[in-house]
């Protein structure tokens, strides 16, 4: 097992980072949501990495996503890059804080194991995604306050942004859950455990 697992893990990180970067680019091209609201679907892949491949992989996916997408959009080191980077840092900080609360048993193929795991006070993909998305928006607003606007009035926007982050956090978490339980990631998660 060991000889096949190692390269596969690296490959999966690359796949997930690529998928996240693509989603990021597509979202950046969608004008419909306005500058203040993005569905943040790219975070789905971070959560998938967090549960499927572990904390380090999730951090790698997040950072690679930000770097690659800003390289492709030509916004590297611009204020908008700083904004996404600070959002990503918020996600990384949140993940490292709650990583020990994760419970991969909620993704188990056996319904019994799943049911038992769900009764425990541990974090499933939806909760993790929710926390990530809230941390993302808070850090981003903090960065906006520091770098771009420099006006304490931006904090008045926080509740409205949190509503969006709450909704998308849950939706993304559900998507991550679906990916984790309906694809080969379940196997990897089980092996990792």
């Amino acid at each position: 097992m060991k000889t096949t697992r190692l390269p596969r893990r690296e490959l999966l990180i690359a796949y997930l980072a690529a998928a996240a970067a693509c989603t990021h680019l597509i979202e950046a091209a969608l004008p419909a949501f306005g500058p203040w609201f993005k569905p943040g679907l790219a975070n789905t892949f971070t959560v998938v990495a967090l549960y499927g491949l572990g904390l380090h992989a999730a951090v790698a996916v997040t950072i690679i996503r930000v770097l690659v997408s800003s390289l492709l959009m030509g916004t590297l080191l611009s204020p908008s890059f700083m904004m996404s980077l600070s959002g990503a840092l918020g996600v990384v900080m949140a993940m490292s804080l709650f990583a020990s609360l994760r419970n991969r048993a909620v993704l188990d193929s056996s319904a019994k194991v799943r049911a038992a795991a769900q009764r425990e006070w541990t974090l499933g993909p939806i909760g993790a995604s929710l926390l990530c998305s809230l941390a993302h928006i808070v850090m981003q607003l903090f960065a906006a306050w520091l770098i771009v606007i420099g006006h304490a009035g931006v904090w008045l926007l926080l509740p409205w942004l949190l509503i969006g982050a709450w909704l998308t956090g849950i939706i993304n978490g559900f998507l991550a859950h679906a990916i984790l339980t309906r694809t080969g990631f379940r196997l990897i998660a089980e092996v990792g455990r």
Partner: protein
Amino acid sequence: MNSTYRLYILPVLVALLLLIALYLDLLPRSNTVQSDTRLAMGTLVTISVWGVPQVKAEQAMQKAFMHIARLEEVLAWQRPSSEVRKINQDSRGTWLPVSEELAKLVELGLRVTELSHGAFSVGLQPLTALWGFSSDQPRSEPPPPAMIAAWLAAYPALQAVQLRKNHDGAYQIKLQNDSVGLDLGAVGKGYAIDQAIAVLQQEGVMNAIINAGGDLRVIGSKGAQPWRIGLQNPREPEHIVSQSLLRGNVAMMTSGDYERYFIFEGKRYHHILDPVTGYPAQSGLSSVSVQGQNASLINGLSTALFVLGAKEGMPLLAAVPGSEALLIDLDGQRVQSKGFVVDWLQQ
């Protein structure tokens, strides 16, 4: 109803409450006028915006203010790094390169000079400096008559400022001699307003007012209602004497003898200088308001009308299509052209 659905009663209630709060917080704001005031061009500039969400309005206003500040850096002869200052410090009697933006504005000023037969000029900076109306410490007595006479003798009237466009499309400017210096004060404010309005429109704001110390331009309306513009009584700034209900694209620029002045030995010396005499214009008017579409043009026009007076001014007004004027003389008597939008209030 099964128990799984019951689990969602609370979240749904929460969501409903959120929606109500959102409605209460956001809806009224895009239906009210949002405004912001800054110091710019030596006066208070207020931008009012209607019909866009608060965040967008703030962003647009911010950009418009930044644009005004940038223009000020190009156009104000008082600013040490401005292009106008550099031209004024350069040599006289030779053709100097000039940026297209500044050239367009000078061209507009020259058009008003031509239409008004020299009652208006963009080359009066040395005379303005002599009278000192725009300095931080204004004079309290007129400069010695000999100095004004000397300036007048040297001033080349219609040939003061000349502009040409080369075959390669670049503009060049020539200031005739030392008695000439660029001072775009009489058109610059209008130009800055026009440009800032363009910035707002680019940002998606279709209903707005930009008011720079009483000179203003409106676009759009407040939904069903027009913008309501009050006009101050020239002699009693506390009193609003009329209202103008403006909608669509209208600029209203006013020149008056009460904006910057001092009184010396019982005589009022104001800041609108007549290039023909070198003294403040004495046309018997105390205020001229002009309405039209282009704020820069009518800004110059209002100054020219003030210098020319009611009698000579009217033909000038007729020469500029789409412009309307209201002239108030020193006794408070009013003359207005047919299309000037104004309702007089009962006092």
